[in-house]
């Protein structure tokens, strides 16, 4: 009979236990990213994991669950999260985690094509940022460093700018013949879009995760050093700094001389555009969670029929939060949306009709639309495995009805 194990066994057992705890019981490491969403004014395009989907946000459709209008899959199950960039011929361009940028033709049999497959300077890391298509060129930041330009006509590489120290995780901005983007290396860059040559750069003392906002010769940039900074594009220098409570990741929105944005402490701010002085700052401590994305600022009529401007942001707390643009007071009765999205809302919201539409980390409702006036959920899109399998099994979903029919047909013919 053996009561205690030997010392050698005990050592091995302890090491094994340690490994088990490390691999299984420790706090899970966060995943990859949130679904990116863009719009051409008619459709919504979402990239999430290995899929790019198209959704018709038609306000006339009253169904609670929207069918996926069109779906394409990346080769080799590569994951994609950047907001799809829309080309002139409606081709969608999305950077992937397999170090490639794919072009997805919006056809009934979408076969993605990797851009510049024989490039002599292939990307060395995943693509996290969304791309920008301008004058037949796709500009897209790379996850580890730099930015690439591709000709959309033939997918060839136009140039590579590799002189950033860290990655470029946000969509670049084209303004007056200059390409602007921020990098995690703390610098704001201005490039010549024709050649990729650096025009100027400016150290902003904190990582930049969002796209700059341009207005009247001034760029507004949020940083992970808890600041919103205004930069003169003529003098290439900082004009003003505003200190926030948390990282500023999203792009601010400018309306009538007021900047609206949120930070990762959960606070939402309204600042004077010129002086960066605070008009109001508001948060809902009873619903804690950071604001990653940009706000949606919308003019609506309130319950009394009076015109009102409302600021709506998505939050890590799984709710949309609403504020009166005038003073930061609650717009919806609870302040937050009536229903939780079941997971974090980290994307930039898009407004279509009376709905503000966001993506979530939950596959069962990867896209959720909320009524602007009430905060109630209008509809959602399910990208769960089964739904996706049915869609991809048919490869022809192009309209809502067709998708429903083909899914039903596939389900009926599926061997049990």
């Amino acid at each position, binding site marked *: *009979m*053996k*009561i*205690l*194990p*030997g*010392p*050698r*066994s*005990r*050592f*091995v057992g*302890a*090491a*094994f236990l*340690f*490994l088990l*705890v*490390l*691999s299984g019981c*420790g*706090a899970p*490491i*966060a*995943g*990859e*990213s*949130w679904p990116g969403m863009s719009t051409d004014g008619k459709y919504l395009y979402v990239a999430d994991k290995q899929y790019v989907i198209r959704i018709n946000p038609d306000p006339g459709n009253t169904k609670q669950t929207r069918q996926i209008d069109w779906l394409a899959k990346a080769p080799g199950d590569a994951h994609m*999260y950047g907001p799809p960039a829309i080309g002139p011929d409606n081709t969608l361009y999305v950077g992937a985690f397999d170090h490639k940028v794919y072009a997805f033709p919006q056809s009934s049999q979408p076969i993605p094509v990797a851009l510049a497959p024989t490039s002599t300077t292939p990307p060395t*890391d995943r693509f*996290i940022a969304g791309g920008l298509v301008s004058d037949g060129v796709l500009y897209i930041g790379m996850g*580890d460093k730099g930015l690439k330009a591709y000709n959309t006509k033939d997918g060839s590489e136009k140039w590579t700018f590799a002189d950033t*120290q*860290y*990655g470029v*995780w946000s969509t670049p901005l084209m303004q007056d013949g200059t390409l602007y983007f921020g990098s*995690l290396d703390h610098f704001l860059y201005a490039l010549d879009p024709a050649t990729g040559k650096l025009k100027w750069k400016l150290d902003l*003392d*904190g*990582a930049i*995760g969002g796209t700059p906002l341009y207005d009247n010769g001034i760029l507004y940039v949020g940083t*992970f*050093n*808890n600041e919103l900074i205004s930069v003169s594009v003529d003098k290439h220098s900082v004009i003003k700094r505003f200190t926030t409570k*948390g*990282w500023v*990741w999203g792009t601010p929105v400018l309306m009538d001389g007021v900047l609206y944005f949120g930070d*990762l402490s959960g606070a939402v701010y309204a600042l004077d555009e010129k002086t960066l002085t605070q008009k109001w700052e508001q948060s809902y401590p009873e619903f804690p969670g*950071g604001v*990653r994305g940009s706000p949606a600022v919308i003019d609506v009529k309130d319950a009394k029929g009076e015109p009102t401007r409302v600021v709506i942001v998505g939050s*890590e707390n799984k709710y949309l939060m609403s504020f009166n643009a005038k003073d930061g007071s609650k717009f919806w009765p609870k302040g937050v949306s009536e229903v939780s999205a079941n997971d974090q809302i*980290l994307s930039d919201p898009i407004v279509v009709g009376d709905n503000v539409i966001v993506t979530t980390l939950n596959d069962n409702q990867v896209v959720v639309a909320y009524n602007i006036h009430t905060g109630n959920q209008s509809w959602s899109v399910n990208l769960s495995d089964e739904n996706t399998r049915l869609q991809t099994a048919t490869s022809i979903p192009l309209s809502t009805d067709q998708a429903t029919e083909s899914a039903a047909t596939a389900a009926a013919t599926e061997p049990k």
Partner: protein
Amino acid sequence: MDFLTNPFTTALLFLYQLLGQNIVLTIIIFTVLTRVLTFPLTQQQIKSSKGMQEIQPVMKKLQEKYKNDREKLASEQMRLYKEHGVNPVMGCLPLLIQMPILLGLYGAISRALAATPLQLLDLNHRILGNDVLHLSKMVPLQNQFLWLNLGQPDKLFILPVLVVVTTWLQSKLMTPAPTTNDPKDPSAAMARNMTVMMPLMIGLFSLQFASGLSMYWVVSNLAVVAQYALMGRVDIRNLIGGGAPKPSPVLIEEADDTPKKKALPTNTRETAAKMAATKKKAANTASTKAKASKAK
């Protein structure tokens, strides 16, 4: 584990700031510092392990002898522990105390090397005292070192190989030599298998780990070997020949008047010699007394 991971992450970023934003140096110093701080616990564990190993042969004999009398076995074991100043709990307790610390360190490194947007978002919530320390300025950490992107697995497989080699080296050098070469001994066989399997398993995991974590494993393994070496506990014989089995133990049979002398491991031999000497002395005293009374 946030209560551990968050302070460790903050400390890691603070050290990163102090060390000129050199992440490799930060990982090395941070790992070594943690190992140094937990050294008293490691020392206690090593001592206890060594003691337990030394009395193992006697323990086996006791287990055989009292296999039908658990109560007696327990009391004899307690007597043996007391005699050798060994506390079996102290072999595991320091390890259990160290485990959360090492988990915190591991968690901190894996989270600080945030390589995706969600990981960076997560890191934001783990930085404590940012108002005072302004550690957000350090984000993201420099993750390029030689050919490595420390936030991603090593594509050249050099670090995973180093992980396997150093883990194997560590277990070979610091695991006590087997007390028997008996191939049928299940615990010895399991230990032999695990000495090979563990490094391979960890190596396999490291193919998926961020290479910064693999670097932590390598540094941590070397730091442990160094600690053992400083205490003179590294058993080179294990490395070169698998370690010769220690001589068979002896159990002083109390019921038997003539102890069966067998080859003894050093420590046990000393104890047995002392006990034998005591018995001999007692016998001599008794014999002298008998002689004296006879003479009277």
